[in-house]
């Protein structure tokens, strides 16, 4: 079968160099998969002619589900019949992306039998991405995956597969159990994950600390980022040890603090925690000496997205600090209220961040019954979404008019 590989002079350029190459991987898969041979042919033609030859399919899926399968058809089915159908399946990854080697082998065995054998581990949503299969193989693949306890993830206008960092399982900075929350939200919102009912997609991403390793602040409609509300734990002996070993604490730590909340006198590191913005810089530089505080929880932010309809948004604060403990009732109650108002009033393809910008955060907060607090700002120290109506008595405006 290896002799059937098409000539690919342009793709071959992408095999050069020491780095991994997707072309090498596709060629390797093409030794066993006719689908991958045609994929190489079509891709080479696309590179040569600078035209993408894929058509978007909008109907394919498995019975009862509205997400998790992204339809793709070749625009050149006569020339490349093996990729006439080349659908993608998104598979719900385990929280923290932990697998046994057996689970991975089982997934790959299924995919070599039912699809092209090509995968993305993992897609930017966090899911396992299985690339390339035909419509008639979707249900059997779903059935095979169900037998090894894997389920399809989200796509379309639904809850996308929740994802998180490895949290407490491997990271010393985790301020809450990201994996437990991810698992709980995934199980609790199965209907929303599989049955698209929103104006557009909605993503939860859980980060255990402000380092935000899953970049939730830039990508998630609801970012749940671990933090603490007491003081940074300082081991002064360990700080001095860093200094003795050559770390320039003034230059590399103190001067890089965004809120200038610390001072180093050569013997002790003093931190004014009331000014700390939890950026993690000092902790990252001196991990043996500094640790997050002991009173830990998370900041919940809302509204980030990549640019599709509108430009890119970063999340803004919804809850400055919240304890993250099962059964996570406050989070779920808030989410339900948010979805209710967004589904009712949101336009087609309007992310919740865009919706909030359109209706105003003040109106949104009122609808979901949350009082505004000073931390809810679009940018620090400007444009506060705080209303001062309570400082004015009814009729104040009339009196001012009469006086003038």
């Amino acid at each position: 079968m290896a002799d059937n590989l098409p000539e690919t002079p342009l793709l071959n350029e992408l095999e050069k160099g020491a780095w991994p190459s997707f072309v090498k991987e596709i060629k390797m898969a093409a030794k066993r998969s006719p689908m991958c041979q045609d994929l190489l042919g079509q891709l080479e033609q696309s590179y040569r002619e600078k035209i993408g030859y894929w058509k978007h399919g909008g109907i394919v899926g498995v019975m009862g589900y509205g997400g998790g399968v992204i339809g793709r058809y070749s625009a050149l089915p006569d020339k490349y019949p093996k990729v006439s159908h080349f659908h993608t399946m998104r598979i719900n990854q385990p929280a923290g992306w932990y697998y046994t080697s057996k689970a991975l082998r089982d997934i790959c065995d299924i995919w070599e039998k039912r699809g092209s054998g090509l995968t993305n581990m993992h897609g930017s949503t966090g899911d396992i991405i299985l690339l390339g299969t035909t419509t008639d193989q979707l249900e059997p693949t779903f059935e095979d995956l169900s037998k090894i306890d894997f389920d399809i993830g989200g796509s379309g206008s639904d809850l996308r597969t929740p994802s998180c960092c490895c949290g407490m399982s491997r990271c010393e900075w985790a301020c809450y159990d990201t994996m437990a929350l991810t698992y709980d939200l995934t199980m609790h919102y199965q209907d929303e994950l599989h049955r698209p009912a929103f104006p557009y997609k909605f993503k939860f991403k859980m980060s255990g600390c402000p380092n935000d390793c899953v970049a939730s602040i830039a990508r998630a409609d609801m970012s749940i980022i671990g933090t603490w509300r007491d003081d940074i734990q300082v081991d002064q002996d360990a700080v001095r040890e860093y200094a003795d070993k050559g770390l320039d604490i003034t230059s590399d730590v103190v001067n890089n603090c965004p809120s200038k909340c610390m001072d180093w006198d050569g013997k002790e590191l003093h931190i004014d925690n009331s000014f700390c913005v939890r950026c993690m810089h000092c902790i990252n530089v001196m991990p043996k000496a500094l640790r997050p505080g002991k009173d830990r929880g998370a900041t919940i932010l809302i509204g980030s997205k990549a640019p599709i309809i509108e430009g890119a948004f970063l999340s803004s604060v919804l809850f400055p600090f919240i304890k993250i403990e099962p059964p996570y009732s406050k989070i779920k109650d808030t989410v339900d209220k948010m979805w209710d108002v967004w589904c009712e009033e949101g336009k087609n393809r309007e992310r919740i961040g865009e919706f909030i910008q359109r209706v105003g955060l003040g109106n949104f907060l009122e609808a979901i019954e949350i009082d505004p607090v000073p931390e809810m700002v679009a940018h620090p120290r400007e444009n506060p979404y705080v209303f001062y109506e309570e400082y004015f008595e009814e009729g104040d405006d009339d009196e001012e008019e009469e006086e003038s």
Partner: protein
Amino acid sequence: MAKSVEEIAEAMFNLVKEAGSQKKLKPMDLTKSMIQMFGDEVDKKICKEAIKQLINSGRCVYTYFGGSFIELPHREGAAND
């Protein structure tokens, strides 16, 4: 008297059928139409159940064209044989 899931599913199915290829309906469009049609006899929860029944029975399918919609099963234009 509250409407049953079956009655709502039937009314939703008729709406989807009438819309045909002229207008794509989202689940919330169907829910809002049911509330407009039946008033207090329905709520969002029962509408969600009715949509689930429509999809699980295969009478309607979810489709995606820039957003997710509910339509009658049909062969899409992009599909290859």
